[in-house]
């Protein structure tokens, strides 16, 4: 139900392709993006067993360049970015001084003086503004490239074969490309960054391509994927895939009122790096003892707890679900929830209040699903 009359809505450069493919659309952070093409479940299973192709052009791409680019990112982000070797990617966080999470990000180290930061669509302006503000004392430039770049993800066990067989796509040293690394490539003469990253829990790739070449690349990938079970996938399957993989979604598991440790992301914060970074003091002080922490919950049956549903221990409310679904891969309900620390140990038996009725749930370690390597 695309409402073209909504002039405020943003559209992907691939929008017409999605319309032609019969996609349904949903608003995501002001963007009209495909929510599904046919069936959420079919798309989900395709990624687990074959491959799926996603348009995630709404994601924000920000370049950070200049002699102080690494120092700026060490100060502006929670991770030790200057230690990331060229050609590698790193998952990171940008914090407020309070320690709260402004966004989660992937940083690609192009070189010592050039980095590429990918932020969530809904936080684009906030992250660009924060980086620019934090850059004041550094010799580095922060530029929002979102409108110039299309991001296409190809995810699933057949992804590699599909990229290898995509006409016109020349990937440098593809055979050596490790997980969370990227390589320079060309498509139809344009530079394309091919990264072995993703948000599905499967092996897969994310391709950053100039807008002018995006339609041709999508079509070339789709053509190569035909014999490999590749299907176009929408945001609905992307959400159940990332949930099974225990990956947080900003606005659900992450937010300004959450310290990294509460979200299970303490490892992402580098307290060993020298020098100050925004949020350091708050992270070192730590969250209050009565703060809640993120856990996984599994239940039996088919009724899923969903975002906002209360988590109970006996008659006491001890937490709230942030994301939940009937897991398409596992066949039982799964959820991520923030619960009191006393209820957070794996094996703890709790209940979920599903619209007035209680279903039994057990705390489990994340992720729910891990691919066989």
């Amino acid at each position, binding site marked *: 139900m695309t409402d073209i009359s909504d002039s405020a809505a943003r559209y992907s450069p691939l929008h017409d392709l999605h319309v032609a493919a019969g996609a349904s659309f949903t608003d995501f952070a002001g963007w009209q993006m495909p929510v599904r093409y046919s069936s*959420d479940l079919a798309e989900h299973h395709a990624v687990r067993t074959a491959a799926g192709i996603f348009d995630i052009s709404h994601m924000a791409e920000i370049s950070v360049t200049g002699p102080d680019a690494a120092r700026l990112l060490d100060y502006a982000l929670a991770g030790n970015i200057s230690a990331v070797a060229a050609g590698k990617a790193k998952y990171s966080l940008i914090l407020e001084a309070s320690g709260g999470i402004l966004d989660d990000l992937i940083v690609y180290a192009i070189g010592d003086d050039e980095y590429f930061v990918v932020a969530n669509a809904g936080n684009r302006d906030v992250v660009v503004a924060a980086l620019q503000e934090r850059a004041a004392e550094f010799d580095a430039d922060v530029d929002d490239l979102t409108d110039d770049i299309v991001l296409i993800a190809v995810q699933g066990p057949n992804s590699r074969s599909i990229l290898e067989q995509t006409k016109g796509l020349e990937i440098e040293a593809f055979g050596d490309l490790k997980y969370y690394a990227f390589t320079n490539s060309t498509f139809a003469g344009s530079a394309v960054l091919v990264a072995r990253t993703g948000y599905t829990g499967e092996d897969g790739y994310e391709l950053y391509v100039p807008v002018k070449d995006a339609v041709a690349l999508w079509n070339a990938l789709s053509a190569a994927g035909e014999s490999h079970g590749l299907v176009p996938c929408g945001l609905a399957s992307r*959400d*159940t895939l990332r949930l099974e993989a225990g990956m947080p979604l900003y606005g659900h598991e992450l937010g300004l009122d959450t310290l990294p440790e509460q979200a299970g992301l303490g490892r992402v914060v580098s307290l060993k790096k020298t020098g100050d970074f925004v949020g350091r003091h708050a992270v070192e002080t730590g969250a209050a003892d009565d703060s809640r922490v993120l856990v996984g919950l599994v239940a039996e049956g088919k009724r*899923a707890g969903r975002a906002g549903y209360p988590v109970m221990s006996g008659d006491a409310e001890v937490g709230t679900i942030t994301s939940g*679904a*009937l897991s398409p891969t596992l066949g039982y309900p799964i959820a991520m929830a923030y619960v009191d620390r006393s209820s957070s140990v794996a094996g703890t038996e709790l209940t979920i209040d599903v619209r007035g009725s209680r279903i039994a749930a057990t705390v489990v370690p994340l992720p729910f699903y891990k691919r066989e390597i």
Partner: protein
Amino acid sequence: MAESSELQYTAEHEWVLVEGTVATIGITQFAADQLGDIVYVDLPAVGSTIAEGKIVGEIESTKSVGELFAPVNGTVVEANEAVIASPELVNSDPLGAGWLVKVEFETLPELLDLAAYTALTGE
């Protein structure tokens, strides 16, 4: 599968097929498409009394939860066990094998015809 023109509709995106004093109730193709893949259906028990406008069941998809509103006053005479076992029937055949409940009704309220319902969904 019933012809969509033979059915009556509600603003809650349900259809009603009237045969004598029994109304068969389901959700429309529009509602099924909006929900996405349906993974769980909760229906009222056979013999239970339902009241027009009240929530009597739930239809859950991977993404969301839809409520089943009673379109009529009456008594449930049959619940579709096939959709409880295979909720995807509601997606694949919402006007046929994906029917939900049959209700012996007392009086039939005013419902929408296909033209009025189509105008409502704008499709």
